[in-house]
């Protein structure tokens, strides 16, 4: 991780301990840590030996010793994860004592990283652009319409596995163009441009019914009468506009018919229709109606054919025998539009008017009108910017609005709409810019102000803007004091489903199950069950069921405040009949996904045995134990191996050993592990992946693969043995619980903060892990700890004093 000198400088004053002389840290190292290294590590990483390129006894200076942050981070992870010292085959596994691990941890955190536990460095969060999902949700809440940003905007990049990472959310010129266009589209769609509209109702051909026919298509050979009734509330003038069409077949057809239209039984027009490829029939009538029911009807009466030869009326179209003539003359009702009441006193407010113009119509008096515009735009910009807009901005917006509604023929509403477009194109809307509490101005580290906190909470838990209650609390400065009740309230809100969806979608990659290319035929074989079209297919419904299972499972743990370890192992999951059949779980019927208690000894329960995860870690035609093993290391145990080295040696030469026989997958992997270059990592990944080999690429159970029995037994690299997936889950949940806590804490913190974690976050993570251990790993404890943590609550402020005055001054 690149360290920026400028920031390092700024940080000098962040943590008081930072001033500490490296010599002190070095002395502590020699006293507390070096003896441990000498006892366990230096055989391989010292005295001139540098296994894996790591030495622990050669540092040019005290400053270098202290400055090797990457080394200490890796060492901490390896030692705490039990990966170092390594277990030697056949020898007793040498393990560090708790106290020894503690001494190393202490030194790394407080001497090498100079963490000040009383005032830790909260890190730097780059101003985050709303990602596509956040944008869509925010527009929904702000404007009340659904704008499909997932189609309209290019995909967001992700960093550290999450697409809300501020550093990678770049804003390309193309996207800027799209933001501007979207601002217009959204306002045009959401905000009314007039104060009053004449009500319109529109009926299509399908709305006209009679004797088994509809107005959608009436054949000139068959008599038809179709009608539609509706009621109006006011006695007034109304306008009825008919839009019908004669549609002939491609080839000429001789049939003819008389079309008659009626309003309330009175004949309004009559027309003889004959073959035309396409001929519109449009008529408009004004009617004086009483309140109550009215009926519009059409009648079609066949006439003698144009060529004089009387044509028999053919049987109904669907029964037409093959080869019969396909020509026809059809009459189609496209729309009938009823507009009214037409008198201005009966005009109504357009939909949404009250949402954007809560005080009603604009006053006629110009000054009052301008004041209303300012008031509306001040409130709107405040919501959109997630903090009060400063007065300069409000005046500029009001000027944009005036510029439009001051023109002849333009409405007040159009003017406000135009200013709203400017708000939606503003960087204050598109970016989440955070500010420190004003009263802490000048401090190197300060709590973020409550508006920033409200936005952090809402984008973390809802992936959308803060609601009125969060904004109200922030305005009064009471949000921090009410953090826990607000957290509870927010998690109970249906919007919290976004958290589950976004977090599991990316942490467990569950969203990929909707697109991962898996060839069901290749996985299941030609005798597998077929779908309605007779194809063996991993279809969309099935993929969504799998995604739902994972989401509902996580949601359950969240809502019921269960232990995080149930993510790894439990005796329940969420299924419907189809998914249960696929998994071989009996007695589940119906389409509804629901909580299912698994039979004793079931292999299911826990995310590792869920279809979504098993599929996304597979190749299109077969499983990949390496990908699955890697998945567990990266996302469950939090001890990812380093990436594969370049110049991977050819497995081909070794393959010759099998003398023409196709080696088994496990044998191939075994070869892998014979190569020293591959071994250290594959011995961590492969046993985990092989334990999951009982699940095919679609997550179904199997005892054999290509005729060979599956051999799931193995050992974690830390030594714990397991016979199969059931035991593996138990071993992880029981023996590696702390690893699971730490891994999930790190993932959750990255998602909540929108940044990768750095060395200065180690202590924060440790504190959360401690709290989890003391509280049975409950989900609520994790979420509370994350939102209460220093990185979530605070920020580094800029060290440039000159600029700081203006931002810290209150916005109003």
């Amino acid at each position, binding site marked *: *991780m*690149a360290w920026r000198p400028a920031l390092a400088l700024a940080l000098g004053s962040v943590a008081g301990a930072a001033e500490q002389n490296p010599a002190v840290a070095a002395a502590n190292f020699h006293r507390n840590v070096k003896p441990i290294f000498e006892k366990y590590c230096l055989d391989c990483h010292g005295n001139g030996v540098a296994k894996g390129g790591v030495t622990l006894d050669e540092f040019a200076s005290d400053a270098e010793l202290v400055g090797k942050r990457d080394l200490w981070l890796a060492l901490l992870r390896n030692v705490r994860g039990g990966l170092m010292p390594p277990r030697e085959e056949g020898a007793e596994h040498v393990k560090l004592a708790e106290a020894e691990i503690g001494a190393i941890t202490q030194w790394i955190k407080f001497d090498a990283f100079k963490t000040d536990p009383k005032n830790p460095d909260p890190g730097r969060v780059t*101003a985050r*652009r709303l990602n596509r999902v956040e944008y869509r949700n925010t527009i929904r809440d702000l404007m009340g319409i659904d704008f499909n940003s997932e*189609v*309209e905007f*290019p*995909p*967001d990049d*992700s*960093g*550290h*596995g999450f*697409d809300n990472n501020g*550093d*990678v959310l*770049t*804003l*390309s*010129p*193309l996207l*800027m*163009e799209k933001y*501007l266009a979207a*601002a*217009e589209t959204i306002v045009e769609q959401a905000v009314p441009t007039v104060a009053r509209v004449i009500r319109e109702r529109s009926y299509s051909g399908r709305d006209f019914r009679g004797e088994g026919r509809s107005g959608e298509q009436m054949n000139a050979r068959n008599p038809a009468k179709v009608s539609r009734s509706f009621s109006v509330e006011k006695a007034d003038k109304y306008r009825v506009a008919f839009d019908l069409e004669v549609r002939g077949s491609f080839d000429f057809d001789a049939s003819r018919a008389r079309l008659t239209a009626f309003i309330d039984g009175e004949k309004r027009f009559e027309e003889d229709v004959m073959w035309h490829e396409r001929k519109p029939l449009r008529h408009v009538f004004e009617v004086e109606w009483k309140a109550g029911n009215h009926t519009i009807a059409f009648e079609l009466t066949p006439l003698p054919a144009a060529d004089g030869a009387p044509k028999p009326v053919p049987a109904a179209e669907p029964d037409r025998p093959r080869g019969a003539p396909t020509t026809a003359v059809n009459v189609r009702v496209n729309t009938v539009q009823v507009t009214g009441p037409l008198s201005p006193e009966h005009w109504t407010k357009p939909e949404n008017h009250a949402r954007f113009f809560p005080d009603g119509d604009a006053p006629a008096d110009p000054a009052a009108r301008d004041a209303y515009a300012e008031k509306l735009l001040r409130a709107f910009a405040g919501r959109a910017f997630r903090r009060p807009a400063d007065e300069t*901005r409000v005046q*500029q*917006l009001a000027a*944009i609005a005036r510029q439009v509604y001051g023109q002849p023929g333009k409405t007040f509403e159009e003017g406000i709409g*135009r200013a709203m*477009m*400017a708000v939606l*194109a*503003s*960087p*204050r809307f598109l970016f989440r*810019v955070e500010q420190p509490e004003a009263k802490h101005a000048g401090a190197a580290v300060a709590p973020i102000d409550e508006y920033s906190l409200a936005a952090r909470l809402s984008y973390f838990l809802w992936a959308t803007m803060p609601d009125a209650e969060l904004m109200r609390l922030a305005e009064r400065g009471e949000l921090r004091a009410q953090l826990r009740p607000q957290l509870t309230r927010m998690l109970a809100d249906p919007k919290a489903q976004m958290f589950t969806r976004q977090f599991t979608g990316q*942490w467990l*990659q*569950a*969203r*990929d199950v909707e697109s991962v*290319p898996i*060839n069901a*035929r290749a996985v299941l074989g030609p005798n597998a069950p077929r779908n309605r079209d007779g194809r063996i297919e991993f279809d969309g419904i099935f993929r969504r069921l799998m995604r739902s299972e994972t989401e509902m499972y996580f949601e359950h743990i969240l809502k019921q405040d269960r232990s995080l370890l149930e993510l790894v192992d439990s005796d329940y999951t969420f299924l419907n009949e189809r998914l249960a059949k696929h998994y071989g779980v009996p007695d589940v019927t119906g389409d509804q996904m629901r909580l299912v208690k698994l039979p004793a000894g079931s292999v299911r329960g826990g995310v590792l045995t869920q279809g979504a995860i098993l599929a996304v870690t597979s*190749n*299109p*035609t077969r499983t990949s134990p390496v990908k699955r093993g890697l998945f567990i290391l*990266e996302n469950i145990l939090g001890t990812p191996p*380093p990436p*594969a*080295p*370049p*110049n991977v040696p*050819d497995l*081909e030469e070794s393959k010759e050993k099998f003398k023409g026989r196709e080696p088994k997958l496990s044998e191939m992997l075994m070869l892998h592990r014979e190569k020293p270059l591959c071994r250290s990592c594959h011995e961590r990944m492969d046993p985990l992946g092989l334990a999951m080999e009982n699940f095919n690429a679609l997550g179904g159970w199997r005892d054999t693969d290509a005729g060979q029995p599956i051999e799931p037994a193995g050992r974690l690299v830390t030594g714990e043995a397991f016979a199969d997936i059931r035991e593996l889950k138990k071993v992880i949940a029981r023996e590696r619980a702390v690893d699971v806590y730490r891994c999930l804490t790190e993932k959750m913190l990255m998602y909540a903060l929108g940044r990768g974690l750095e060395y200065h976050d180690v202590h924060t993570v440790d504190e959360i892990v401690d709290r989890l251990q003391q509280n049975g790993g409950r989900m609520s404890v994790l979420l509370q700890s994350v939102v209460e943590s220093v990185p979530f609550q605070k920020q580094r402020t*800029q060290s440039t004093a000159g*600029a700081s005055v*203006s931002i810290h001054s209150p916005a109003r």
Partner: protein
Amino acid sequence: MKRSPAPASPSDLAAQRFLQMNRRQFLRGLGTCIALPMFGSALRPLAGAATTNPAAGLGVTPTGAPLRMAFVYFPNGAHQDYWWPTGEGADFTFGRTMEPLAPLKGAVQVLGGLDHKNATAGNDGAGDHARANATFLTGMRARKTDSTDIQVGISIDQVVAQKVGHQTRFSSLELSCDAVRKAGRCDSGYSCAYQYNLSWASPSMPMAPEPNPRLVFERLFGAGAPGERQKNFRMRQETQKSLLDFVLDDAKSLQRSLSSHDRDKLDEYLTGLRGIEARIQRAERFGELPDPNADTPTGIPPNYGDHMDIMFDLLAMAFETDSTRVATLLLAHDGSNRAFPQIGIAEGHHYCSHHRNEEALMEKIGQIDLYYMKHFAKFLQKLDAKKDVDGKSILHNSMIVYGCGNSDGNRHTHHNLPIVLAGGGGGTLRTGRFVKANSRPMSDLFLSMADRMGVKQLERFGDSSGVLTAV
């Protein structure tokens, strides 16, 4: 803005020519995946790049016609034995993969011996797919980072676009057939940005490509039904102009209050705004939008082959209407594990590319390479059939690189990259040859292309060693 009656510039003529195509030709041009009605003969001629005084030699052929440059990327390297032709110079025979190019043999060059050293592991370890993609048009080494401090280099298309782009409505066009992003992490500690973008406006600013054909079409030709687009476009333009002052001022005031890092983010915003401003000014200068009087495509076709075809068609339309002279098209990101059931390949491409010399998998790689090549060849044939203002074909007046930043996908090598340079460069390229460059940086080819585009002042690019004169 007052416009004097401009003399028919080459682009005006191109535009008229575009309208005069007969229906059959046009439909063929667009492929069968979108059925388009014919051009209305009543349409007024279009004004394309109506610069009355085009900057001398910038993005033009020796005859004064527009010169276009495009880069098309296919993923995961190529089956070596099937890719490389036999023979050398003008006397060569295509290998299996390039058979679809046979009818165009005289219009292409196969380039061997071009390398991207900066895509090799160096001290960076694994991540060859991310590097192959990131280095391909930049010639630079991507900094290995997952999020902070993304850095590679400005890409050659953007270097050229920044010089010649003012002459057309769009300074460049970035397209992709990769619509779905994988969740989670990308290649071995490299940010996904490296793997899904070919084009970089600055070392840290990727130009996100557009995968949706409808949106490409609307951007080029306006939204709405044929005939309404000009009006819609004008209205939109007027509205945007009325907003620009506010947002510019807002962004600047916000930027002043930010930390240096966040200021960089706001810079991206401001750059985007300035681009829009420039586009609006250009659009006013160029007058009417070209209106292909065709229905807007509906979205991303479910069949990948159709998706490629339609993106190629849109690219051809953009070139033909002289809407831009610089484009990139990422057919799929390097490392793509797409399956090809339409040609009977159920396994993923990436999976097959690590074939461990197994005959069956290698054969599949050959099939996939051929599949990509067929679609590319179809595109070239369309360009070849379209006449440009100087009576030559659009293909003659283009330089189109088709290639990959990986050569052997099994071993992740980055030397002797699989590269085809199609088109005559306005008669400046010696086509119809298999050129062996003998281990030269790919960047040398870029220098020589930039040179032809009129960007003469470019002395170095990426890891270049000098202009490649052999093409």
